[in-house]
């Protein structure tokens, strides 16, 4: 079924992790975990932060520049999804596409996470 889908709907936006980003061309949906301190203003020149693979601190990170609505739950250590495209080593996000997930599911991992 999945093969059927990938063959038919190849035109959709693929979802990738930061570590797979280099091999991708064109717009993708990036899923990752925020590391370090974000800087900048999402309403002006853009919010800048780094993402690595979810739950894999050793994976390579990518710099993301994002403009638009910033979810309340956006913070270092959170998982998020953002759409955009890699340009010259920086992931330029499509404005307003950042999504974090329902916080209830963080409860199970809190002790080890924070």
């Amino acid at each position, binding site marked *: 079924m999945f093969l059927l889908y990938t063959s038919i709907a190849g035109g959709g936006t693929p979802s990738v992790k930061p570590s797979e980003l280099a091999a991708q061309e064109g717009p993708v949906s990036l899923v990752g975990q925020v590391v370090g301190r974000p800087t900048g203003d999402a309403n002006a020149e853009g919010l800048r932060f780094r993402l690595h693979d979810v739950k894999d601190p050793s994976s390579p990170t990518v710099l993301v520049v994002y403009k638009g609505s*910033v979810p309340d739950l956006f913070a270092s250590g959170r998982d998020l999804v953002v759409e955009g495209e890699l340009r010259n080593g920086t992931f330029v996000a499509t404005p307003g596409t950042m999504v974090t997930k329902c916080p*209830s599911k963080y*409860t199970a991992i809190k002790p080890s996470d924070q």
Partner: protein
Amino acid sequence: MADLGRAALLLTLGLCLYACIVGTVAAVTRKRRLAMSARNALIASFGSTLVATTILVAGFVRNDYSLVYVAETSSRSLGGIYKVSALWGGQEGSLLLWLLILTGYAALAVWLNRNRTRDLVVWVTPVLGGIAVFFSFLLVAVASPFVTQVAPLDGSGLNPSLQNPYMMSHPPFLYLGYVGLAVPFAFAMGALLSGRTDERWIVATRRWTLIAWTALGIGQLLGSHWAYLEVGWGGFYAWDPVENAALMPFLAATAFLHSVMIQEKRGMLKVWNMVLVSLAFCLSIFGTFLTRSGVVNSIHSFAQSSIGAWFLAFIVIAVVFSTVTIVWRLPLLRSTTKLESLISREAVFLYNNLLLVALCLTILWGVAWPILSEAVRGDSVVVGRPYFDFFLRIFGLPLLLLMGVGPLIAWRRASLRGLGATFFWPISIAIGTGVVLLILGAGSSIPGLIAYTFSAFVLAAIGLEFVRGTRARRALSSESWPVAFGSLVGRNRRRYGGYIVHVAIVLFAIGVAGASAYDSVVEGRLAKGEALTVSGYTVRYVGLSERQTDHATEVRAKLAVSKDGKNLGGLEAGKNSYKIAGLEPQVSSEVGVRTDYLTGEDLFVIPETIYDDGSMYFRIFVKPLVNLLWLSGLVFLLGSIIALWPDARVQRRLAVRYEEASSPVRGR
């Protein structure tokens, strides 16, 4: 107090074990008094679970932070009512709520059916008892909510995003739905184990299934509305695994609700119904597993979570148990009739079932594939929105169409000529709507256009059914139109309640298509007195105010809204800052929404940033038709209640049927 709580849970485990083991022995040896004893144990387990829950709630109310669970999900500054909802703010409490609802349902189900379907209920007791054993075991041995510690001064608090009125309603409704599916499952297994595979188990649980299904639907819509109002949750539906967790059992239960009608009317699909009810139940457990084990984040957090492996084991047991039982009883599940034509109402029901199950399984695959891939290959993949959207269109649009076809087509065998006459009006209206929409420029989204055309078709078909039925009643009894309409619905509650639910689904489809395709947005930084304009609305930033409540600082921007020069009054949007001792303050954005009840349009103001100079950055959306989603929830509830409402005539008919079925000479 914690000791008392632990003791109560231990007692629950004991009672459920007794109900399960002794109940099985009683059913096999046909000992009536033993069966009654097992049943009473199951009913009593509700009492002991209630005691445990009350103790935990009391812990929250009294700020008893010697309980680890209370300290982790509550704090002194937490607003009164949220102290109660913090009960299900974490894992252990959620499991306790599961068990409470399960034992409550179980007690009610075996009590209400104590004098009917006796041969079947003796098997229902051990099945429900077995499920409750699993949850009470988890609460006693693996994830106890009554673990104690040296009490800290304050708790770490409930996540601010969860301090929302929807926290009071959304999770309990979902649980009422999830857990409710255990009852039809237990009756189905009871029917198989006792060998009484006539449709009494379906009749006995029809209402249970409907209640569970309705609660699941309403729970999801409440969650949708919640996500709609929270910034950055991806709108009303984001295909998040946690959201899919509730959608899958809902789809399976929807298929089940339809296919049981075929078994009742035509004696077909007996095996299929057993499979569906088992699927719905297993998916409800799987859904709880998904939301509670942390497996969706990563296989690694799953390994850290204490309950994950137990849940997985229970799911395997449930799947194996139901499969083996169904296969063992296959000879008893032969259809009494065959499908006569591919153009008939039962055939349409069958197509509907296949589509619903296909949609359900593709979603399941989309949820499970990343987990499996990570477990097997160590490489995580992400299945995103395009995958789900694609299959929603592939399976959802035909489903929509079938909703219009089903009610109009005849049972057994429909003639093509009759069909032409029946469908003349709905098809004409649908094509007319399509053409008008195309002229108005809706052709920009082809799936949207198809959805609207199909919706028009379904609404026309349902409208036609109501008109025809009312006309027939008038001819029969010369009642006035409203009276005839009322008695039409009143005498066929299940049927017309169902049609009303169909209308709700259509409204939902229109809302989804409209809200995602046609919204407009404007954004900008405003100093006091400045304004933004979008789609005829003008939003002026008037000033800023600050309120101090017990648990948060609430900053609000006052906005003045006008449309086409007409003053529409004020609106507020801002941010709440929750302070918890020793932690960084947690901020929650509070959007401002102004609903136009006439057009179903929302003006949606997101307060992005409050700058030090008092200026603010706003992002303002106009979302047309989105309120149809929430309206559809009300219509859905209305239809379900009509379908659920007890009908004395039907009750009498059923009583006769029970008599016949219980008498030694059985036959249909």
